[in-house]
């Protein structure tokens, strides 16, 4: 009796000591549960016909001035819906200044593009088509071309009855297809649901560092691992390009060199990394954060030197790798004539 009363406070004290030793989580109880379905705007309900039309348009190079570049040229499903390049190659083989963002889970983003200049997937879908640097096809010419391809009329009619072939229906169809490009259930998700063996101890430790010592959750929050925000995280320049980022849209000092926080789901599939592809691997990215960024001009104040050990960096990388689900299976469409 006397022994047990002495042991209980000792056990309690040990438990307290263990809690104190672990870094406190700073994510304020964010949920990491993968949502069942993406948000869909009221005026563009997802239907099989709209998804099919959108997928067809997504893979059709005739949506570019050269008739040689499709959405899928840069957003290649075999490369994590990006292109594997540091920065995109556009019309006339011109090398562009930003990395092609994966469209995986773009359905959840509250703003699209690295600088957030489009508010929705519907707005975004026409941007690269009309951009002289990217697909270089005027939208009027796009509509004329699609009307000249007899096979498209019935696809549009099934998707948007009575609305015809127009920039608006093209945009809405592509957005509908993009909302199907979502990451699958990952080992991390299975672990969160209670399967302790779904991920290794390294990934489990990595998640604690991610939420604690490294404070990655200051920006990568919640189920899609993003705050839908904009930060200058100190990425090193490539080819002398000093990218103003969000500042071009929002002329507030904090936005100089700031770019959108991307999702981390399936991040292992989308190397190289950051808005300019300056880092080849997840390890290089975590090392950059551990150094407190590589460029300190107007650095986001959430970024600070972390001094992670090599083992801690391995653990964070293992955690990031545990966020990969089975790749989306997409049927390559036969394009209409």
């Amino acid at each position, binding site marked *: 009796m006397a022994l047990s009363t002495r042991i209980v406070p000792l056990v309690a004290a040990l438990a307290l000591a263990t809690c104190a030793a672990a870094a406190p989580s700073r*994510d*304020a109880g964010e949920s990491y549960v993968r949502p069942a379905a993406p948000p869909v705007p009221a005026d563009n309900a997802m239907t099989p016909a709209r998804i099919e039309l959108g997928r067809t348009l997504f893979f059709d190079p005739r949506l570019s001035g050269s008739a040689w570049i499709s959405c899928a040229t840069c957003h290649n499903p075999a490369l994590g819906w990006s292109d594997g390049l540091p920065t995109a190659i556009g019309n006339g083989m011109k090398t562009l200044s930003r990395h092609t963002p994966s469209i995986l889970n773009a359905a959840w983003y509250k703003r699209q593009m690295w600088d957030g200049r489009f508010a929705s997937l519907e707005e975004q879908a026409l941007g690269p088509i009309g951009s002289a640097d990217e697909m270089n096809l005027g939208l009027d010419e796009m509509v004329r071309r699609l009307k000249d391809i007899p096979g498209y009329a019935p696809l549009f009619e099934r998707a948007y009855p009575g609305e015809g072939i127009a920039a608006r229906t093209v945009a809405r169809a592509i957005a509908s297809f993009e909302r199907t490009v979502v990451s699958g259930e990952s080992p991390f998700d299975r672990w969160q649901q209670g399967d302790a063996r779904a991920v290794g101890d390294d990934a489990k430790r990595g998640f604690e560092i991610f939420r604690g010592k490294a*404070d990655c959750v200051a*920006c990568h929050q919640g189920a899609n691992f993003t*705050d839908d*925000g*904009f930060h200058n995280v100190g990425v090193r320049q490539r080819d002398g390009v000093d990218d103003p980022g969000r500042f071009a849209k929002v*002329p507030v000092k*904090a936005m100089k060199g700031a770019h959108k926080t991307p999702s981390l789901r399936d991040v292992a599939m989308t190397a190289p990394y950051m808005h300019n592809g300056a880092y080849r691997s997840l390890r290089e990215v975590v090392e950059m954060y551990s150094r407190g960024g590589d460029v300190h001009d107007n650095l986001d104040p959430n970024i600070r030197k972390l001094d992670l050990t090599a083992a801690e960096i391995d653990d964070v990388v293992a955690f990031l790798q545990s966020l990969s689900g089975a790749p989306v299976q997409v049927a390559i469409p036969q394009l209409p004539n």
Partner: protein
Amino acid sequence: MTTKSLLLLAAALASSATLQAKEIEVSQKTKAFMLQKSPVQALHVNVGDAVSFRNDDPFFHNVYSESAAKAFDLGSYPQGQAKKVVFDKEGIVDIECAIHPDMKLRVEVAK
């Protein structure tokens, strides 16, 4: 009306404005502007009133507006800090957090 009485009237008006000017506390929590612990999208204030913005999230927030009635940038600041803006002109002031652009607050400033 004499110059003296005009001055007295002006002084009386100024002092009553000073007495009535209030300070409203707005919190930034879970990436939303909150008034008394509830999300708030619009505030009605009078010319001369101040709003204090306190960051209650464990990461940095920013507060800025580009509106003609009050253009300002409070910069980025961490949990526990507060910064104040005095609304000195009538009009509509649209405020956002530059870092988290879904955080929006409209302040309608009346005379």
